[in-house]
């Protein structure tokens, strides 16, 4: 198996799960994956030669490598997320890799309004907000289109939503860091319900997708699945849970959601002409994510992938707390 982007939290857990069940695992990313038992191939997914070496002889690819950021040069997003996916896909098909899991994001079908109890709508890069969602949308369309129904490389797209867990730098670290500095507001009333996914569940789901491509390809190939814990929580609950686990004060001040969106647009524009080294404090995409409901119908995901989340939100929070307790000791 090849796992791209295994230096990230989710990628490393996926690689570890595969190693743990006795698979031969190769990883591809620029930095060491740190996954014991996996063979790292160092390099970029945009480099065809490296990628060709990486896919050689594997019977499945889990493609996670992506530029995940709230800001940055649009060309970078295109190069890594669209170009990289295209390169890995081409290589996999050329090498005759039978199974390909494209790890995507629910934001590819999110145009800013609330999503309540919906399934995996088709990706729509033209309406997606932000370069990340736009390029991930294009990448998913590319990947699914690569499965033309013939024998060759079967493709499924999996969209884990708001993945978190011990060691997560995307959501947890940002929340904890800002809360510790007293700079974490709640948008609106913090009452929007959002789905999230504990990292182990997301990894299990991705591995399940890989297995289903082998066991029941006609059920899942060419399709996209949103993957969540199936336990929506209010944004306030989720923030409070994460802060509580990390032992920092929960957010206590509020910013009207409309204001946050407007501010996000301004900040985005400023960051675009004067890119800083830091992440912008707010973007329109983030403001929308944190002030509108987005939770999903998991029935098709669970039925088709034959998967259910093993770790509940509450248990995940306990694990997170244990992780922070361990770190501060």
């Amino acid at each position: 198996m090849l796992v791209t982007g295994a230096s990230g939290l989710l990628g490393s857990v996926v690689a570890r799960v595969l190693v743990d069940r006795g698979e031969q695992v190769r990883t591809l990313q620029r930095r060491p994956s740190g996954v014991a038992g996996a063979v790292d191939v160092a390099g970029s997914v945009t480099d065809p030669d490296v990628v060709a070496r990486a896919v050689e002889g594997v019977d499945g690819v889990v493609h996670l490598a992506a530029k995940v950021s709230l800001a940055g040069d649009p060309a970078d997003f295109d190069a890594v997320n669209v170009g990289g996916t295209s390169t890995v896909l081409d290589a996999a098909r050329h090498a005759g890799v039978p199974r390909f899991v494209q790890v995507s994001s629910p934001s590819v079908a999110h145009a800013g309004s609330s999503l309540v109890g919906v399934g995996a709508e088709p990706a729509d890069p033209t309406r997606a907000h932000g370069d990340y969602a736009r390029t991930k949308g294009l990448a998913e369309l590319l990947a699914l289109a690569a499965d033309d129904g013939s024998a060759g490389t079967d493709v499924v797209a999996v969209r884990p939503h708001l993945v978190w867990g011990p060691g997560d730098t995307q959501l947890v670290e940002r929340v904890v860091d800002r809360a510790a500095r007293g700079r974490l507001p709640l948008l609106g009333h913090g009452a929007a319900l959002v789905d999230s996914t504990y990292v182990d569940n997301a990894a299990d789901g991705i591995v399940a997708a890989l297995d289903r491509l082998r066991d029941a390809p006609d059920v899942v190939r060419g399709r996209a699945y949103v993957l969540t814990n199936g336990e929506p929580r209010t944004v306030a609950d989720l923030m409070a849970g994460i802060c509580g686990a990390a032992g920092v004060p929960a957010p206590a001040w509020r910013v009207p959601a409309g204001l946050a969106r407007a501010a996000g647009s301004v900040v985005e524009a400023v960051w675009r002409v004067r890119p800083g080294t830091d992440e912008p404090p707010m973007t329109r995409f983030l403001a929308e994510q944190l002030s509108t409901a987005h939770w999903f119908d998991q029935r098709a995901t669970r039925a088709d992938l034959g998967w259910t989340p093993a770790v509940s939100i509450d248990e995940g929070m306990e694990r997170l707390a244990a992780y922070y307790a361990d770190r501060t000791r």
Partner: protein
Amino acid sequence: MTARAGARAADTVPPGLPGLEVRYSRVLTDACGAQWHYLDNLPDLADAADEALEGTVLAVHGNPTWSYLWRRLVAAGAEAGWRVVAVDQLEMGLSQRAADPADRYRTLPERVADLAAFTDALGLTGPVVTLGHDWGGVVSLGWAVDHPDRLAGVALLNTAVHQPDDVPLPAPLRLALAGPVLPLGTRSTRAFLETTLALARPALPAHVADAYRLPYRRADERAGIEGFVADIPAGREHPSRPELDRIAAGVAALKVPALMLWGPHDPIFSDRYLDDLVHRLPHAHVHRFADAGHLVAEDADWVGPVTGWLRTTVEPSGPAGPSAGPSAGPQPPFVPLWAALDARAADAAPAVLDLSAAEGSVARSVTWRALHRQVLRVAAGLHAIGVRRGDRVSLLVEPGPTLTALVYACLRIGAVVVVADAGLGVRGMTRAQRGAWPQFVVAQRKGLAAARTLGWPGVRISADALSPAVRRALGVEHELVDVARAGQGTDLPPEPGPLDEAAVLFTSGSTGPAKGVVYTHAQLSALRDVLAAHLDVGAGTGLVTGFAPFALLGPALGTRSVTPVMDVSRPRTLTARAVADAVRAADGDMVFLSPAAILNVVDTAGELDAADRDALARVRTFLSTGAPIGADLLAAAARLMPRATAHTPYGMTECLLVTDITGDGVRDAAAEPDDGVCVGVPLPGVEVLVSALDAGGAATGEPGRAPGVLGEVLVRAPHLKQRYDRLWLTDRAAERDTPPGRWHRTGDVGHLDDAGRLWIEGRLAHVLTTADGPLAPVGPEQHAERVAQVRRAAVVGVGPAGVQHAVAVVETLPATRRPGLAPARLAAAVRGACPVPLVAVLVAPRMPTDVRHNSKIDRARLAAWADGILTGGRVGAP
């Protein structure tokens, strides 16, 4: 045709009309040379064998519409096995326009003859079901009366066949008919056409309205509209009046199945005309669509009901469906409700005590002898002023001897009493009175004033003595004292039979608009018998109750009855002292109260003195009727009546007694809690089944008694209602997929346990449909309410059906002032107490409830409120 001014041949429809395919459109010329346009679904039936065809629906539109009105049935008819022919009347729609028709218009007898010429030209054989709307209803009935050999049924949408001489025409028609207004309103301008199209509720989509306008765009095309209006038989001398009277009389003799689908919001064909038709065709299936108006064919889903009626009522040659006949099996001998009154006709003991008329502590007492005499006098008097068997008499009189005498007098002569609780409020009451359309109304001053100002139907009879000026002002025709006097020494008409209708009782309206529930004499007698047998009520019992249906059963049970001093429409006005007074006055040993009344009685217990407490200690049976009450409240009430056995029966307006549980039973159930409220075991003679809920929350399971299965509760009992009043589709829904016999789907959900006890878990409409299956709210709510800080909880669903998540909304102690997300600690406590996953816990200062009970939480509104907050919307009060 010659090309004279205004003349135009019949034509087929142009393509592109919404919902109407060109292939149905046809033209024919009859034997008189008249050219007709009509819609015919024959193309759909080309492949069907003749024997597969059930018959033909002949549909006749009114003024100023055309056959387009019937397009949905035309399209659906073939699948139901029926040919549908929808004709454009001459001068209307796309049928011919004669030259200069304004010189004279076609009269009703001509129109009826025209239609016969059309069906002859079509070669229409039987069986035929006529269908008509507006004045097309009259024409279609004319055809029906004239073709008994081919007639298989009649169906009507808002129409009329009779205009009483003493009732003015509806105002819009009077205006249209007034002198120069007629041609102006109907022909020169499109006023009449546009006014009619504007009656649609909701408004017609623009392209549909345009389709209706299609044949009437030019003034000369609208001559037929004017002619139709001019032909309205406004007075006795009108040339079309004899034909109308002939049809009206002929309709009353029809025995074929009849269906009436009505939009009550009609300024022209109001409920008055529906009532007239119901009297002519008493066997008709009638449904009033609560929100529909004159264009009921546009406002309501009527095609399914029509094809359903064709299938279940017209097609079978055998007996009618389950709702028509009495229940199978041997019937116990029928003992009429007034039998106990007759038996005690010479008894000088008190029958009814009236505390509101008390002077000092002595109540006004009416003996059995006096009550019996008064009932006979009022009965004969009502008959003398024209109240006939089957006539409806609305009673707006507070409980007491007067109401009691009126009820038994009406029952004795076969008049149907209409009882609607004042708790419905003015709007609900008006809706109920219009819906039931009583011929007479007996009321006290307040009710008379409401009847007058709100235009409630019925000849007004005052229960109080009034001055001549007030009488005139309130439009009162009779006073009850005069009625009783008129009945003195007069013979009574024959007694009604067990299958005759006896009463229309209105539901509380807390679960949708109030519905009239029809009971026969046999069913009311059965209610009396189950009560007498179960609670051991007899001649020596003294019954204290402010709860209307049971208060009125006192004389039927042969017991003394008394109403405590209270405002009966506001049960919370009942105090503990008032109950004690009533118990003393009636030597009462049985007390029936509603939950809201019990709450106040317990709250005011501090006012009781030693004598009051002694009086209450005599009570041996205590009954709480209505919504289930908590064990704590029941225990508090039981402490006031220490020797009484507490009963809390479960029932509804449709079946007043289904199950019963005693105070001990409530304690037993509390010791082994299960989801929902335990309401005990069915009363003798009552059967309860449960129809399991499917994943979508619909009660589709085969009704059964398996324990632990969550589903809709079905009941069957000798005292179950006969039907809903003028709500045939509601009847059908309530009897859907039930076992043989008369069963009723209650709309409540719950389960049976191993001991045969029923546990109620909420209303079917409030069931959540989660990805894990249906979830009834009451069970989790009970768990949430165990949290000390929670006063009351409601569990509602957010999100689309099938993937809903549960949210708990709680009222707290002390009450929060601001609605929104619950504080973290409270949320954690509620989550911990609840056995189902909750995605959020919200607090509300006060939850929306129904007006009447102040206890049934409006979960639909609460769910919408929670949904708004949890999608990131505004946080307001629920």
